[in-house]
């Protein structure tokens, strides 16, 4: 099978994740959509590693996973902190600087 098909799936998942980041209002769902985009990029890396016949792409995907784990830890801590002070997990409610 042609590995390019995986790239199409990856592009679709990235696009869907981007829509989710813009459209959804719950901060945790927005965060999950970011994870979806990172995963889509990982699929591209793994596919490119296979197309080029070396393992560099897989190493980069591995690093992406580690960075994504760090990002989840800090991001969820920020969401919990915001929830503690504002009693809401909606991205629209954290608008103190706009007023």
């Amino acid at each position: 099978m042609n590995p390019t098909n995986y790239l199409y799936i990856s592009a679709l998942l990235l696009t869907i994740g981007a829509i989710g980041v813009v459209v959804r209002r719950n901060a945790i769902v927005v965060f999950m959509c970011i994870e979806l985009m990172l995963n889509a990029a990982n699929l591209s890396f793994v596919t490119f590693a296979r197309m080029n016949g070396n393992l560099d792409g897989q190493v980069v995907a591995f690093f992406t996973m580690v960075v994504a784990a760090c990002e989840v830890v800090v991001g969820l801590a920020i969401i919990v902190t915001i929830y503690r002070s504002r009693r809401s997990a909606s991205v629209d409610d954290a608008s103190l600087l706009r007023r």
Partner: protein
Amino acid sequence: MPESVLFWIMGPLAVVAALGMLLVKKAVHSALLLAWVMITLAFFYIAQGALFLGIVQIVVYTGAVMMLFLFILMLVGVDASDSLTETIRGLRPIAITAAIGFGGLMVSLIGRASLGRESVGLDQANAAGNVEGLAYQLFSTYVFPFEAVSALLITAAMGAMVLAHHQREVPRSTQRDLSEQRFRSGSLATAAGLPGPGVFARHNAVDVPALLPDGTPAPASISETLRTRGDMIDSSQFQLDQVNTEVKEEK
């Protein structure tokens, strides 16, 4: 051949689950759909010769990251921010149009681009085993990024601890303080505490309101969380004049 069967079954399922993430109302359902997308991606990794990454995907992403997400969802609670209503007018059509443009661009780009040769495949790179090959790369070419990532992990753990640390600004109110507060508030009706749910009514479930002596339901007896979640049974069916006394006593 087995790979294309796997791809054409799992690929559409992954895209449908990702679309479902956008459309479902509850954040918990979104999380479960995302876990499914991640498992699908693990299948794709293993099918493409990335055995180690496939296992790591399941262990780290569906195991650790998604559990963390669900844990925070339960901690933060399910509230009205789950709603799908549009708060910025015209945002949704613009976002979808832009996304279709972006996705179309990406897909047409991938369709036209080529490596200038056939894809090589990982048979040679994986000759000594996928894990061994990755380990060799990681500890030779990529040893400095590897060390930097370890520093990043430690920093992230420290950051999470600093953010989660909570210092009390006012001293915790004692039982005596709370009692005085109840007696000095406007009404003495709740001086002995709020009524428990379902007491003296036909049910003792937590989502059924207690009945007052005159037969009206007491909304204060239901936990606030259940009310915002909308998990409360309609209380009117428990009013004294509404209750059907014909039916046999419930066990």
